[in-house]
């Protein structure tokens, strides 16, 4: 059993989804963590200077938005679906809609289609105004395959 799935069991027991982020070094480094929200799971990337991609605007690096949308999808799959394995990302397409200012980014994910082995997830990220997303993403994850065979739907 992976330590992430152990941490998931602990987080469920404690009712604290934030524990999930502590098990992932990259999430800690990026300050990306899921939050206990009302009725929906939100993931927040806390602003720090290391996220900047353009110092003149200034704006967050596009890669940080793609990364946090991917983490948002993973946290969603772990917390909101009955996954028995750590979701394995197959691909992700990120659309950049607005330049992201140097403040926190919040995101949520929804499952568009849950298959036996493959899940299609949509995620969107915003800053102060939820109706003005800064980036959206679609991603595929393998959820129950133990081999490295190419995914087939």
């Amino acid at each position, binding site marked *: 059993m992976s330590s992430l799935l152990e941490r998931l069991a602990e987080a469920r027991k404690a009712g604290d989804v934030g524990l999930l982020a502590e098990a992932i070094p*990259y999430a*800690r480094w990026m300050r990306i963590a899921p939050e206990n929200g009302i009725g929906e799971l939100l993931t927040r990337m806390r602003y720090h200077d290391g996220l900047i991609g353009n*110092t*003149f605007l200034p704006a967050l690096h596009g890669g*940080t938005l793609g*990364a946090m949308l991917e983490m948002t999808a993973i946290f969603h799959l772990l917390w909101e679906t009955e996954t028995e394995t750590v979701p394995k990302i197959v691909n992700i397409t990120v659309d950049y809609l607005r330049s992201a200012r140097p403040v926190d980014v919040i995101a949520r994910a929804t499952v568009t289609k849950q298959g036996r082995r493959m899940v299609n997830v949509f995620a969107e990220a915003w800053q102060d105004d939820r109706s003005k997303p800064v980036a959206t993403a679609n991603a595929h994850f393998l959820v129950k395959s133990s081999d490295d065979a190419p995914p087939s739907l």
Partner: protein
Amino acid sequence: MTSPFADRDARIALFQKWFSDTIPHSKALGLKVIDARRGFASMQLDWREELVGNPETGVLAGGPLTAMLDGCCGMAVATMLKEPKPFATLDLRIDYVRPATPGKAVIAEAECYRVTNSVAFTRAFAHHGDAKDPIAAAAGTFMLGTKGIVTRAQSIGAEPKI
């Protein structure tokens, strides 16, 4: 007068400065520019514990690869712009074809194969040294002439002899 871009080492040092050292997130990742010429860019990301996505396996998270591929594709775009103009990523697709090997550096190679008035088209691969055995494949498009002032990195393509 010789261009500072004529010598390969000097050119790489300038790209390192404008595409990694002065971009806070690229610097935080420790991205190293290993090659740059008209239409082509290559970077290296060294494995670090804090970039790991699954502590059980030590495999890098997708995020650092996303950021490197975005940056590398952007660098390839910059080499193609004869007139300095600001640009921004419009979309980026990444296929994770196999997990990165823990402990090994990842190399990204990006090509900007078409530039129009408004859009630049790029593709890239990430690998461990053998481009025929990729870890990830990417396709990115960039919007040209976006808001804001031209950064030094975005005007690098206007230099002669890059």
